[in-house]
């Protein structure tokens, strides 16, 4: 099997952005994403997810390095100041590189 290197971009942010971000991802070249419900704590305090608007989501995007940088950059300029948000990138190996 040929594993090929790709990037995994992970974003933890406010649930309110779930309706907005997917469109941005698409424009910037992502071919898919995965979302899980999350809660947590950071510089903007506790986000316990117990009540509608104070939950987090955790988004993962498998993509090439260029797309990962583009999305991270976009998030930084557009959302970092106003929303609870954390972004990190890691290296992964994928099986069907054409998909990402």
């Amino acid at each position, binding site marked *: 099997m040929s594993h090929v290197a790709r990037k995994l971009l992970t974003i933890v942010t*406010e649930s*309110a952005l779930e*309706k*907005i971000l997917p469109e941005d991802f698409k424009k910037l070249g992502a071919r898919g994403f995965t979302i899980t419900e999350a809660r947590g704590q950071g510089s903007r*305090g506790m986000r316990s*997810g*117990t*009540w*509608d*608007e104070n*939950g987090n989501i955790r988004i993962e995007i498998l993509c090439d390095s260029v797309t990962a940088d583009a999305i991270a950059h976009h998030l930084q300029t557009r*959302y970092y*100041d*106003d*929303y609870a948000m954390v972004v990190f990138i890691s290296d992964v190996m994928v099986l069907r590189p054409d998909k990402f």
Partner: protein
Amino acid sequence: MTSLDPVLLFFILGLTAGLMRADVRLPSAIYELISMLLLLTIGLKGGVELARQPVGSLAFQALAVIAMGAVLPLLAFPVLRHVGRLKRADAASVAAHYGSVSVATYAVATAYFMTREIPFEAHMPFLLAVLEIPAIVVGILLAKGLNRDIRIGQVAHEVFLGKGIVLLIGGLLIGWIAGYEGLASIKPLFFDLFKGVLALFLLEMGLITASQFSSLRQYGPFLLVFGIVMPLVSSVIGMLIGFNLGLSLGGTAMLAILAASASYIAVPAAMRISVPEANPTLSLAASLGVTFPFNVLVGIPLYHTMTEQLFAIARS
């Protein structure tokens, strides 16, 4: 003041539990179900009554109420900006919350009026739905002016097709089409359980209110005072509008209550998307931490008494 409605005892239980950090939260799925049931029931009740009554000058009343929803945030904004020294976006956002309405407060008021057998206009749920919107528009304009890019489509969708409005209006239409007999078969769930469901809802609201107290402390006494004075002022405006629209005593008091109530669902969601630079905890601390408990515990009977006196004076 007569004895406390038992549903308010659930609110106090929730508040107390919350302050002692006891974990009695409803799962979020249940909280959502309960909100949906309340919205549908309020709508259905209104619709059923509408089917029995002539609608009257509905359009005119809607216009008057839209104007009220637009004016209230315009009154609040300068106070928040100059007395409270809030940033522009924050002042606009808080103002929008107070121009809009709280369905929970309306539900408690309904229970209050039911117990006392005070009738009010059947189309109130319609006015409730209408009142959710104008303050949001004004709030966005106050924060952004006309020239900035806001996700207008997104926000419009969020506002007009939010859960609150769709279920209120949907319930209203179903009730109106089916009529009282038509709804007999679904009465056990939507009507008979109403106050029990409201009790559970208020238990949770008590917990949420308690969780706002800590952020409230952070913002100093201004928010506390604003959260009490603003509804007092708004209630008088609502009452006078209701009176001049020729509403019944119950309807006039209800409009006072709606004016006094502050949103904590529709407006925060809309503001988070359209005015993201506004701090959401600020608005919620005021709306949920001060105004909601004030209204349900003190405000509702107060606005009712106030309206009785207005009608007594007018009659004499």
